[in-house]
């Protein structure tokens, strides 16, 4: 196989394998896999900002929540059906990212992390402040009528799995195409050496803003899909925890690799599920999932800052996109 065909073949094989897995797995693990796929879309968006463009954000929960609530509230109050609600969610994520980016991208590094964190926190508090509309901490359940796309009811298993896989496949292929495009190379140039790319005539602000907006579109899509597929919208999606999770997935799978975010999300779910299984044997481990997340973060930054696929790419698999 030629060097340019390999990546495409790998991505198609992954999508195919996931389709088979969703078809043959029993309902509980299959539903979990659908959740992983939706969160992987979120992480892929995060990866475009952090892994490729070098923008370490602590505020992506805001973009996710924008998607969740744009879809959820429009379904709840305007009776929007799932298709338009999803589209609205995508746009809300992108719009929110544009608004945050216009201000936050004037800073860099640690300041950028804190500014995005503060915006996300303000967003979370705003959702709580308007509790009577947003449901506050409790959230709300989406009306069943709004969870239908093209006649398929998303509250039943098969359509839900197909929709999750479809969204994931689009996200994966778009991100593959994007990082191999000239624009993708400009994104990497921002990460590697912003000053030099400025001298080559690339405007760093424009590239970074565009990357952040694309990242926000992914987050919005994931948020809206999560609300529509699993029927729930709540303020917890805006908590800092949902900014940390995609970072963790990306760091674990490999920042700046297209499949890394999915791999990281999958492994983290397996790890946490494994811990809660063990907790049934040893009750000491009860509710230790956050401990696992914390330990994973520390171990990753200390010993494997490039993540799994990043390390593999370093060790010979150079063609990994």
């Amino acid at each position, binding site marked *: 196989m030629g060097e340019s065909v390999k990546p495409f073949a790998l991505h198609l094989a992954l999508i195919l394998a996931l389709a088979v897995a969703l078809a043959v797995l029993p309902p509980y693990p299959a539903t979990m896999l659908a959740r992983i796929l939706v969160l992987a879309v979120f992480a892929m968006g995060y990866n475009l900002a952090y892994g490729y463009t070098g923008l*370490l954000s*602590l505020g992506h929960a805001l973009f996710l929540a924008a998607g969740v609530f744009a879809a959820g509230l429009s379904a709840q109050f305007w009776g929007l059906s799932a298709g338009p609600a999803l589209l609205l969610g995508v746009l809300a994520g992108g719009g929110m990212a544009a608004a945050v980016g216009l*201000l*936050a991208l*004037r*800073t860099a*590094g*640690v*300041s950028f*992390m*804190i*500014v995005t*964190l*503060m*915006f996300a*926190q*303000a967003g979370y*508090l*705003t959702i*709580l*402040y308007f509790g009577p509309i947003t449901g506050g901490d409790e959230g709300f359940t989406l009306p069943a009528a709004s969870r239908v796309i093209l006649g398929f009811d998303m509250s039943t298993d098969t359509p839900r799995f197909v929709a999750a896989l479809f969204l994931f496949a689009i996200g994966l292929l778009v991100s593959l195409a994007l990082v191999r495009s000239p624009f993708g190379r400009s994104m990497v140039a921002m990460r590697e050496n912003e000053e030099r790319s400025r001298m080559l005539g690339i405007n760093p602000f424009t590239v970074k803003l565009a990357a952040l907006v694309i990242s926000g579109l992914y987050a919005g899509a994931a948020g809206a899909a999560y609300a529509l597929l699993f029927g729930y919208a709540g303020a917890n999606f805006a908590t800092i925890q949902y900014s*940390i999770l995609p*970072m963790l997935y990306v*760091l674990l799978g490999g920042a700046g690799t297209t499949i890394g975010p999915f791999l990281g999300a999958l492994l983290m779910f397996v790890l946490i599920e494994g811990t809660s299984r063990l907790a049934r044997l040893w009750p*000491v481990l*009860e*509710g*230790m999932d*956050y*401990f696992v*997340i*914390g*330990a*994973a*973060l*520390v171990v*990753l*930054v*200390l010993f494997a*800052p490039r993540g799994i696929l990043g390390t593999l790419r370093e060790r010979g698999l150079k063609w990994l996109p």
Partner: protein
Amino acid sequence: MAFGPFLLLALMEGLVTAAVLALAASGLSLLFGVMRVVNVAHGAFFMLGAVLAWAVDSVVPAPPALAFLAALVIAPLLVASLAAVADGLILKRLNYDPEATIVATIGLLYMIQQATLALYGPNANPVTAPFELRLQFPWFGYSGYKLFVVVAAALVLLALWAFMTRTKAGLIMRATQVDRTMARAFGINVDRVYMGTFALGAALAALAGVLIVPIQQAHYLMGGDPLLLSFIVVIIGGLGSLRGTIVAALIIGLSDGVISMFFSPTLAKIIATLLVAMVLVFRPQGLFGAKA
């Protein structure tokens, strides 16, 4: 109650918040100033201080005042040792890279929180105040302990200031802050300075936690709000500037007291977080900092 006394009450509550905040935030500010790192686990150290104060209070068979005094010494020391270990095992190996440190301290925060949940449980537990004193104003009675907190915080901050400006250790820390390479060239063990600074910062957070626990119960998630507010204070005051931190703590504490009393606490926090984001974007040196 008329508006005047109401405002007075709001300002007094705000002053207590400001005192505790100044203490916690000065620790964060110290870390940023000397080590150029942001410690996300700072709120967890605050929480550990409070929880350890409860533990000491329930173990030591002494009158509340003595038990509290013991907690005031033991809790910050234990937290400082934990911080020193974390510094040696994690932060030092990361070479204090700013972004990696944030990620690692997020991990540390989760681990401390979850370990506390496992060992201490999900309940909030009260600690008896070291003394019972009620100051009677014409319009309302006020807890004497709360005023003690303000005085204690002021004394600690004064001691910190004297330590930084009047002792050799403080001089070494300031030298490291200005130029770590030059400090190393002059034979200063920068690694030890960093470990000491990290421990001192954590101890300040823990001390704030001990002081607050008779007012607010000890709970494993209590570190979130102080962390956020400390961030706000440190940024508005100018990263690394102790004086700026204290001024900012007063402003944020008092306005938080007033806005929370007359409007809503959530609204007060929304305004403060947005303000901080704007300050970082448009005035990165802080409102009072001279330059970055």
